[in-house]
């Protein structure tokens, strides 16, 4: 066992293009998509027949039969069957948290290599039957004789037959994530124009990154899709301005354009100790320096649902003696344009930084030219658990291309949580 923690190398990543819900991947399952992303990673880094210390992945929307999804995908892959696997789940933080889980094991010397990632489908959604019907069917199943089963079946009434459709809704408030973010956007004075500008920049940056081949070694085509299905290269502020608000009422500022759509996709990242990477003749793009998760109370409106990253980042900065300005890239997951803008505004705001964070001075502004330089979720879309892997792989490659530097990652998640990270080269 090493006396100190080891540096965790990011070797590279792979994902399938993200598709809009009920689009190209309408009939693909979570397992299909995760397998496709993993298969591309195996090809890229010659992992066929190798033992990986642990593969961690998860999905936010998951069928109950997929309780061991990641292990099943590993068993079906060309990795050695001795590669362990685990399923994790932390809403939209799932992907980054899975990567963090693997990285921590590598840092502690428990494993030498690992794969972290995630997958989600909103098309092949886990529809359940209504709870009344489910309980009565459970009762039927518990009967031993056919006669008793028939009796139990007879108790089912037409009114019991209902579907339980998974909803993007906070159980404790009954509000959707967009409804919550609309409140936060209003309370931070985030304008429609600012949101649409951020959205247009995301599409522009993602399209440019595709055009110069940035994603060539980060993406494996899947089911006929070679680029993210949500990308609108010709998106402009003027076009976005025509959309009607979908959250925050008729006078709201959030539209289908400046909010991420429901989508399908998968991503994985290969992590390793430096020794393992070298021994396997693999590159090191960057290092995962640290991860910080934070959570906030939001149920009674005490804080915005998606504001936890604003609390997590200062803890990261303090732990490493950094300021918010000490970064070359900022990868702030664009769940909604307003989420990014609220977070940035909070860090600039003296009242938030003093009263909520207990700091004498605001964290300050960032150089917007360093924000989501290759696009983010508004353009690529956001299959919940797949976003962490997309961001880590993108940022690691950016730092590798730059020949060094430091990047900040921020991902907000349902339940008032947020996962943030520092990646360095």
């Amino acid at each position, binding site marked *: 066992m090493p006396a100190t923690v080891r540096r965790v190398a990011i070797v590279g990543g792979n994902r399938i293009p993200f598709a809009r819900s009920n689009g190209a991947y309408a009939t693909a399952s979570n397992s299909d998509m995760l397998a496709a992303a993993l298969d591309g990673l195996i090809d890229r880094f010659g992992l066929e027949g190798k033992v990986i210390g642990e593969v961690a992945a998860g999905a936010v929307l998951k069928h109950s039969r997929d309780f061991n999804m990641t292990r099943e995908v590993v068993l079906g892959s060309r990795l050695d069957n001795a590669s362990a696997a685990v399923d994790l789940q932390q809403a939209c933080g799932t992907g980054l948290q899975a990567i963090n889980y693997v990285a921590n094991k590598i840092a502690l010397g428990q494993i030498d290599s690992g794969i972290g990632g995630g997958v989600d489908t909103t098309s092949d959604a886990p529809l359940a039957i209504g709870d009344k019907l489910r309980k009565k069917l459970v009762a039927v199943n518990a009967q031993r004789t056919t006669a008793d089963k028939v009796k139990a079946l007879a108790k089912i009434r037409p009114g019991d037959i209902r579907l339980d459709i998974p909803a993007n809704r906070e159980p404790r408030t009954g509000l959707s994530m967009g409804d919550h973010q609309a409140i936060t*956007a209003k309370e931070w004075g985030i304008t429609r124009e600012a949101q649409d500008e951020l959205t247009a920049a995301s599409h522009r940056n993602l399209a440019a990154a595709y055009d110069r081949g940035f994603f060539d070694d980060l993406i494996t085509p899947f089911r006929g899709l070679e680029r993210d299905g949500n990308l609108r290269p010709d998106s402009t502020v003027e076009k976005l301005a025509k959309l009607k608000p979908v959250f925050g009422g008729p006078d709201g500022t959030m539209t289908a354009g400046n909010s991420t759509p429901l989508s399908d996709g998968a991503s994985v990242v290969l992590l390793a100790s430096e020794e393992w990477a070298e021994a396997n003749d693999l590159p090191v793009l960057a290092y995962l320096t640290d991860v910080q998760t934070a959570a906030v109370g939001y149920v009674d409106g005490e804080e915005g649902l998606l504001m936890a990253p604003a609390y997590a980042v200062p803890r990261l900065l303090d732990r490493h003696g950094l300021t918010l300005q000490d970064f070359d890239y900022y990868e702030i997951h664009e769940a909604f344009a307003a989420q990014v803008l609220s977070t940035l505004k909070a860090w600039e705001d003296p009242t938030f930084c003093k009263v909520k964070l207990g700091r004498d001075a605001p964290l300050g502004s960032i150089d917007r030219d360093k924000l989501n330089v290759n696009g983010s979720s508004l353009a690529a879309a956001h299959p919940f658990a797949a976003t962490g892997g997309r961001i880590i792989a993108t940022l690691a490659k950016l730092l590798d291309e730059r020949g060094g530097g430091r990047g900040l990652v921020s991902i907000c998640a349902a339940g008032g949580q947020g996962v943030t990270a520092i990646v360095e080269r």
Partner: protein
Amino acid sequence: MTDRYRSFVNSAIGRQIAPRLGLPQPPVLQRHRVGDPVVDGPVLVGAAPGGRLAGAIARTLAAVGAETWTTEAGDLRQTAADAGLAPKIYADGAAGDQRFKALVLDATGIADVDALGELHAFFHPVARRLQGCGRIIVLGTTPELLDGSARIAQRALEGFTRSTGKEIKRGVTSQLVYVAPDAEDRIASTLRFLLSPRSAFVSGQVVRIMPSDRDPELNWSEPLKGKVALVTGASRGIGEAIAQTLARDGAHVVGLDIAPLADELAAVTGRIGGSAITLDVTDDDAGAVLAERLKADHGGVDVVVHNAGITRDKTLGNMKREVWDQVLAVNLRAPEAITRALLDAGTINRDGRIVGVASIAGIAGNFGQTNYATSKAGVIGLVDALAADVAARDITINAVAPGFIETQMTAKVPLGIREAGRRLSSLGQGGLPVDVAETIAWYASPASAGVNGNVVRVCGQSLLGA
């Protein structure tokens, strides 16, 4: 006395009919109940550049736990942070369906005519965002203490707040608070009063706040704890409400009334755990007797409310001299004589509060009330005459000027005049005795040390004398 018309227009049918007929729709005013917060909705704070009150406003809002919003003007956010507040941000075009309970502007930075545009800049975007029974509060600098362009611009604020009071309906009130230099930290009691439903029937008023060294520790839920309050004419009507309200705020109330009302007085003081004095305030030795009784029984007095008053209406040609004399004696000579006697005897304690009850008739004049209006205008004179002197002893003197208040007295007014009295005001209805009492309780608070020499009307911004 119930206001049947107001009840009707606020009924299910009335709400349908009144707007179709173009009838006035006086709202049901929100009033304070024990345990209620100072303000039960979001408060938006703005500041004209160069202002000096944002910090004091923020500290008060933090203390009352208000949901605070600010514009992004100047260093307002830093000021709020220094006060320990983390307000939300109001931005045009981002506020969606947001509504506010109160709009508060620090206008002390307005130093010339051009800067008056800050009024429009702050209030115009949110003029339609006020909730029912909302509050508009503008804080400026006392013009008489300024010179030149700043004096002109600060004086101009009054036209704005009086107009918003008339323009914005649904029980919204609008006030102007002039804060003298160095009186920044004396605004808390006034801001709390004007924000809260305690000031339900006060609108279109101007309050002046002066510096004071007196800054007592205060329990805001019982600000008069340990204080002794004398209330004349306490057996019924407004006097009874004053006695109850001061007792609610923790005071030991000494109620006073004439012998024929002794039983009613005893009922009132008994209910609130106070004590009663039966006395005719017009007696020559009333002041001396009171000074002695208050000193002997309570060691002095902290709050003196000259509420006792009478009307004897006649047109001047029909008014006999004794009727004139009666009204002047009760309404004006007694308050002056008793105040002087108590001051001379040192009966009024340090941090004492003297409160006169004037009337809008004393400001506007009224048909058949030459005697009454003279006496009530004289009460305003009493405040003017004594304010500086008592301030030197850390005592304040102020007056309320009630408009149409629903009492036994106004119930006897003929219907036509009564309806006119109710409707010809911004709030479109009569006030309640408690509205006068709450205003007096604000004057009486130990935190109101900077509130001196004021005459605040409790009239729903009546058109009379406005």
